């Protein structure tokens, strides 16, 4: 498995009955705001609040530690490897392994550059992109990739994650046999729209809930 934005992740000071303690290096931002930990939803408040201050402008941590939530430690896995969808990886000692397709992780990590665009970044008045929109877009992608792997035993093709119009985010799959565009709007109250076809007569279009597994869409992508 390819680890992104990490160096020398390891566990220390693990005691029976206590949440494991991790040392890691990566992007602080990813850790603080990440709710998605490979199949377990982890509420932000479950993290220790003193996670570490940003040590420099590069957003990269030099090191630090935090307590992983009970939701994970109670799994009882003796060997567990987990990844945040932003690309930060952690290792606990011992046994089972959960992985994400490296291509999906890389696409998500690369797409963080969208958040660096300021208002009027194109000199035509386009607004900046919000963290919450990006989060919804990447959560949606991880959810579909998880479903593809867990339920269908297949890897979801890797899309491009792109700055869309009016602070929305596009997910674009362009493959030999089909093309699909999903648009995640900046306003969560607006519908997420999609359109795809096989370059011929077969097409799909409509609205979807990005917080759900869209089984039909995933199956269509894998067909």
């Amino acid at each position, binding site marked *: 498995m390819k680890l992104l934005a990490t160096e020398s992740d390891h566990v220390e000071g693990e005691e029976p009955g206590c949440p494991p303690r991790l040392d890691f290096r990566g992007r602080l931002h990813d850790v603080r705001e990440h709710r998605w930990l490979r199949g377990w939803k982890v509420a932000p408040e479950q993290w220790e609040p003193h996670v570490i201050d940003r040590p420099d402008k590069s957003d990269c941590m030099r090191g630090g530690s935090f307590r992983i939530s009970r939701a994970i430690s109670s799994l009882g896995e003796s060997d567990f490897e987990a990844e945040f969808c932003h690309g930060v990886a952690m290792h606990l000692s011992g046994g089972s392994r959960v992985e994400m397709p490296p291509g999906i992780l890389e696409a998500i990590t690369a797409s963080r550059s969208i958040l660096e665009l300021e208002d009027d970044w194109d000199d035509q008045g386009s607004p900046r992109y919000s963290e919450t929109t990006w989060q919804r877009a990447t959560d949606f992608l991880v959810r579909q990739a998880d479903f593809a792997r867990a339920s269908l035993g297949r890897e979801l093709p890797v899309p491009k994650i792109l700055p869309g119009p009016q602070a929305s985010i596009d997910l674009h799959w362009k493959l030999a046999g089909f093309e699909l*565009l999903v648009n995640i709007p900046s306003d969560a109250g607006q519908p997420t729209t*999609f359109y795809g076809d096989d370059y011929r007569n077969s097409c799909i279009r409509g609205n979807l809930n990005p917080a759900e597994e869209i089984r039909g869409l995933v199956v269509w992508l894998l067909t």
Partner: protein
Amino acid sequence: MWSKEVIPDSSSVLLRVHKSLIPDAEVRPNVFRDQGGGMSVDWREYSTALETRNRGKIPTDNAVISLPAGGIRQIEGLEVQHDPVQENSFDQNGNPLRPNRAHAQVIGEKTTERRLKLSRIDWRWELRPGD
């Protein structure tokens, strides 16, 4: 004062594309977007690609592609209309606009479906990123 003319299907329009939209020099559906009432383009009849690029605030941050007017019109719900910017025109905020006889609009909401289809029509590079 310039009159509004009919842009024939056989003609083409020029679209300025910011470099942030084409990091891998590939034109994808996110390039196509409305700014205000439509997607602003220049009719090639009255503009070169270089002139179109130079209308950007930072010209070198932009590439320029051309799109056939007929190809745009083949996408249901889209129309290409000549919309020259006359002398002494102002934007919504009251700022003066530079006159531009070539200015045109691609009218019709840029839905997900239409944006994907726009990315497929026979567009061509006129000025690539960095040119």
